[in-house]
């Protein structure tokens, strides 16, 4: 039952990153590449029409996590207190940037909200990557100092950074050179994904240029991926053991590689939706590979006093999990139906769709 909910939450989270990922990416593309007002407007629209229904997945993932793994929810949310609250603020800034931009016709007004949308999209992509990096690296569970724990073994607290910025210290911070590396990978991935989305959904004048950008970013991503694997081995020598033990898990890295390789042919790909599919695979593969490498651990401990948090030592009762299964399946079917209806209604290019005024 724990396993079922773990997989369900992983799926919901992966869907969230694929969906909200493209509007984060659209924000980054908007920030760096959109120069003309018309492009800015359609890119804003390509995110603005969808962001709220995409972020619903985050709320759903949060709710499911709370229900199925309350101890993990409590541990991680209080331990990563500051970065999480900052993420909340960024989500707000992004949302108001999108929603308020079109309300007045003044250039200054638009400029403010363009920056708000773009910068917070960029920072969110970075922070989500850093968060993933933190999960992979692990934390000092129980805040152990010289072998003595200050708290129960599932509680911790991370400052934003430790002055060494190293993942290998006894009390690592949220931001260190390893997590920043993962953050950059996340930014690059989502920029590619967002650019694909813009190409798919709009007729912006920069679309052709964006294909070149995707190609270059993809090279960078390949390099960064290799680099991160080397560093990861350094931070945690057992990082890839799971794949050796259970070779079928290798399907996830293969998904990632398929996306990565596919995107090298971006200029030859005829259908924009195929390119978008490639970056979708990239995100799905990236997240699932990371989770698979840790499984069944969901938050490693960096000290020897406390054991890792796993899906088994943080879950709710068996009865609760099975009851939730009944309504969860019903809910999931409903959600898929809503999504299909919504996607059909907004299929194709969105340039002429009414939004924000």
């Amino acid at each position, binding site marked *: 039952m724990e396993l079922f909910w773990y997989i369900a939450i992983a799926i919901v989270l992966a869907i969230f990153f694929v969906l909200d990922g493209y509007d984060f990416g659209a924000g980054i593309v908007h920030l760096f590449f959109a120069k003309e007002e018309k492009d800015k407007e359609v890119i804003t629209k390509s995110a603005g029409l969808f962001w709220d229904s995409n972020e619903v997945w*985050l709320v759903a993932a949060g709710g499911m996590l*709370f229900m199925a793994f309350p101890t993990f929810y409590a541990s991680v949310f209080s331990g990563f207190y500051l970065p999480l609250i900052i993420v909340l*603020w960024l989500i707000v800034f992004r949302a108001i940037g999108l929603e308020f931009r079109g309300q007045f016709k003044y250039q200054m007004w638009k400029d403010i909200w363009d920056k708000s949308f773009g910068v917070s999209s960029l920072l969110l992509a970075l922070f989500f990557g850093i968060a993933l990096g933190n999960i992979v690296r692990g934390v000092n569970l129980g805040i152990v100092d010289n072998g003595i724990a200050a708290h129960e073994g599932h509680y911790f607290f991370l400052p934003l950074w430790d002055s060494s910025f190293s993942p290998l210290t006894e009390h690592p911070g949220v931001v260190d050179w390893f997590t920043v590396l993962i953050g950059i990978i996340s930014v690059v991935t989502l920029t590619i994904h967002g650019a694909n989305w813009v190409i798919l959904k709009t007729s912006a004048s920069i679309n052709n240029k964006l294909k070149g950008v995707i190609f270059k970013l993809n090279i960078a991503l390949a390099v960064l991926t290799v680099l991160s694997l080397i560093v990861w081995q350094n931070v945690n020598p057992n990082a890839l053991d799971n794949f050796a033990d259970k070779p079928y898990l290798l399907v996830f890295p293969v998904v990632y590689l398929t996306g990565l390789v596919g995107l090298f042919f971006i200029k030859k790909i005829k259908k924009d939706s195929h390119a978008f599919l490639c970056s979708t695979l990239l995100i799905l593969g990236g997240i699932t590979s990371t989770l698979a490498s840790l499984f069944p651990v969901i938050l490693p401990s960096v000290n020897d006093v406390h054991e890792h948090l796993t899906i088994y030592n943080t879950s*709710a009762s068996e*009865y*609760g999990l099975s009851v939730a299964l009944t309504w969860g399946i019903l809910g999931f079917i409903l959600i898929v139906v*809503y999504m299909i209806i919504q996607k059909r209604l907004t299929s194709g290019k969105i340039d002429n769709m009414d939004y924000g005024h």
Partner: protein
Amino acid sequence: MEDMLFYDRLQFAFTITFHYIFPQLTMGLSLMIVYFKWKYLRNKIEKYNNAAKFFMKIFAVNFTMGVVTGIPMEFQFGTNWAKFSELTGGIIGQTLAMEGMFSFFLESSFLALFIFGEKLMGQKLHFLTGLFVFIGSWASGWFILATNAWMQHPVGHEVLENGKFVLDNFSELFTNPWLIPAFLHNQMASVVTSAFVVASIGAFYILRNKQTEYGKLFLKTGVVFGLISSLLVAFPTGDWNAKNVAKYQPGTFAAMEGIFETEHAGAEIVLIGQPNMLEKKLDNKIAVPNILSFLTYQDWDRQIAGMDQFEAEELPDNIPALYYSYHIMVGLGTIFIGVMFVALFFLWRKKLFTMKPLLWTIMFLVPFPYIANITGWYTAELGRQPYLVYGLLKTSDGISPTVSSGNTLFTLLGFVALYMLLGLLFLVLVGKTINEGPKHQTH
């Protein structure tokens, strides 16, 4: 330690107060939008359709604000109330996850369809999408109230040795005797807010003599919805809730009514007075004898336990705030009934649209249902103190053990700044929409 609890509570109070400005409007307004759309389907008068679309625009702004201020609420269970989440997540996680899955998805998907899909879908389907938005927003209220009802009157669980609450009967969460009265009371109160907003916009249009045709429609509809809902808020739903408090949280009942000493026979109802915690009495009291006993038990002489019958630690920790919240809510609710009754009377005599003083009154009353709704929630939440889960888990035992008060104060200040900005933008935007009016959008 004390500091941590204080700042955690302050931050939650601030963020939930700000958040609840928005859902209380959207829940009620969605019902009125469904009404306008339904009228249009019946009589095909364009005015009603425009009214529905106009209010859906206002709904959408409020919904966005509700989403961006609502996500921090879900997060804060984990960030600031980690121990509470850990111990009770197996129970309230159920209802909160169901809210996300059933209502939030429904509401947000169909809202987009309602706004963008009228031409594509045709009128009947458009009405249906509006109906689903309504169902989604009320379902959301249902799950949140189910969560709160469990905290007020915990049922269907078992407490393990390590202090964890484990679900052992799922359906009891929804047959909780606290839930239905609280849900109905809350939903009716949110209809009051939306009715006042609709009526107030109507009064504004009539007074400024522009789009008066819509002004009259909004005012008329607002007054009818307003009177019915303010009556239902008081009776039977309010009455029902008060009886529940008397039954399940007797100490809270004494505190909110301001009864310091138990009387020998029937208890009086306090209308005005200031709790004096030093001398344990009410200053400057105006009260009517025996009414409280009658209202609560339909028995003029029934004794009601005063605060002197309870241990200090069993009573809410902020009695004056609880007392004022409750009395402000009840006082305002009474005023709403009065004003709406008068307005309906003059509507019937066909004089309302020309009665300037009454129109001004209705227009300026609009903040007060918001205050009544929020003080109502304060009554519920302050009344439950010092517990998070009534009688079982103290509020002080629910906070995150590792988040220091300095960090919480930092984020609280950030929320204050951000929400002030949000509030300002919200007012500008809603003001602009109201100023343009419904005619603006008939292309």
